[in-house]
C-alpha cells in the first residue's frame, strides 16, 4: 500500500489532495514505522478513529471529498485516478494565487467559511482592472472551482432530503445553512429543514435515530461484557422500532456485534 499511496501523494499533493496514514498504536511503534518504511505522506496517531469509520481490516482506505463526504470505501481498495481527478475539480486551491495583499480578504473569508463573501469577491474580481491577464486567468480558475463546489453543495442538500438517515441529514443541513449563508445551498437547506419539521414520519425517524445514537454511546464495544449488553439493547431497540430505518440500523449493528 505504501508505494501506491506515495505515488498518489506525489502526483496530487499540490493539487488539493492530502494522504494521511492513521493508526491508533503507540507513539514508539509509529515512530519506528515511519523510520523503517519512510512513507512520504503524513502519518498521524488517532486512537478511536478507525472505530468511527468502521474499517474492517488493515489497510483500509477511505476517500473524503472537500465537503467532507465519503467518496470511496475500502471495498474499492485504493480509489481510481478518475475519482480523485473528479473530486479535485471542486477544491479551491488559493495557494495557487500569488502571496499578495490583494488576495488577503479572499483568503480570510474562505478560511472563515464566509462563502457568500468569497462569491462576492470573485464577482468583483471578474470586473476589476487590478489584475493583468495572467492573474485574471488564475482567479477565473479558482472562481470556477468555487462555483463547482457551491453547485455540489446544492446537490448535496437535495440528496440529503432523500434520507434514509434523516438525523444525520438534519445535522448536515444545519451546517450547510450556516456555512453557505447568503448562497443558494443555504436557502435550499433551510427549505429542506422546514420540510423535515413538517413531515411527521421524518420527525419520528429523527427522534428514533437520536435515541439509537444514545443507546450506542452508552456502551463501550471494546469490552466483552458491555458488548453483550449493547447487543441486547440494540435488539430490543430494533424490536420496538420495527419498520423504521432506525430499527433497521439497530438490527444491523447488533448483527455485526454477534459476528465477533
Amino acid at each position, binding site marked *: *500500500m*505504501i*508505494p*501506491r*499511496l506515495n*505515488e*498518489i501523494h506525489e502526483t496530487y499533493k499540490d493539487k*488539493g*489532495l*492530502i*494522504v*494521511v*496514514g*492513521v*493508526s491508533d*498504536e503507540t507513539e514508539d511503534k509509529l*515512530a*519506528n514505522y*515511519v523510520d523503517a518504511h519512510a*512513507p512520504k505522506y*503524513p*502519518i*498521524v*496517531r*488517532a*486512537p*478511536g*478513529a478507525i*472505530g468511527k*469509520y*468502521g*474499517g*474492517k*481490516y*488493515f*489497510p483500509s*482506505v477511505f*476517500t*473524503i471529498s*472537500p465537503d*467532507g*463526504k*465519503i*467518496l*470511496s*470505501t*475500502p*471495498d474499492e481498495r485504493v*480509489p481510481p485516478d478518475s475519482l*480523485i481527478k473528479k473530486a479535485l475539480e471542486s*477544491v479551491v486551491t488559493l495557494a495557487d494565487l500569488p502571496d499578495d495583499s490583494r488576495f488577503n480578504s479572499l483568503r480570510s473569508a474562505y478560511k472563515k467559511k464566509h462563502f457568500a463573501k468569497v462569491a462576492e469577491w470573485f464577482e468583483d474580481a471578474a470586473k476589476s482592472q487590478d489584475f493583468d491577464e495572467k492573474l485574471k486567468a488564475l482567479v477565473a480558475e479558482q472562481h470556477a472551482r468555487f462555483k463547482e463546489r457551491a453547485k455540489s453543495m446544492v446537490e448535496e442538500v437535495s440528496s440529503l432530503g432523500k434520507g434514509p438517515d434523516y438525523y*444525520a441529514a438534519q445535522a448536515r443541513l444545519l451546517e450547510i445553512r450556516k456555512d453557505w449563508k447568503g448562497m443558494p445551498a443555504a436557502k435550499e437547506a433551510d427549505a429542506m429543514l422546514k420540510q423535515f419539521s413538517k413531515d411527521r414520519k421524518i420527525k419520528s425517524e429523527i427522534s428514533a435515530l437520536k435515541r439509537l445514537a444514545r443507546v450506542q454511546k452508552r*456502551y463501550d*464495544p*471494546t469490552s466483552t461484557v458491555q*458488548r453483550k449488553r449493547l447487543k441486547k439493547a440494540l435488539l430490543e431497540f430494533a424490536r420496538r422500532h420495527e419498520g423504521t430505518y432506525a430499527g433497521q440500523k439497530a438490527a444491523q*449493528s447488533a448483527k*455485526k*456485534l454477534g459476528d*465477533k
Partner: protein
Amino acid sequence: MNPSPCFRRAAFGLAGLLLAGTAQAQLAKGTMAPSFEIKKAWNGGPKSFGEVKGQVILLEFFATW
C-alpha cells in the same frame, strides 16, 4: 516506485485480518466523514482533522504489525 513482491504479499496478508471491537458498520459512500482527535503527527501531518477539511483526503487506516 514499484512495490516489492514481498511487501505486496505482506500487504495482502494484513488485509485479511479482521478488526475486533468495532460496533460501527463500515461507513457507506455519501455519508459524512466523522472527524477525530489527532494525538501526534509525523511528516508534517495535520494537528487536527479540521486543518485538512476542504481538500480531498485519502485516509489510510493501517497497522504497523
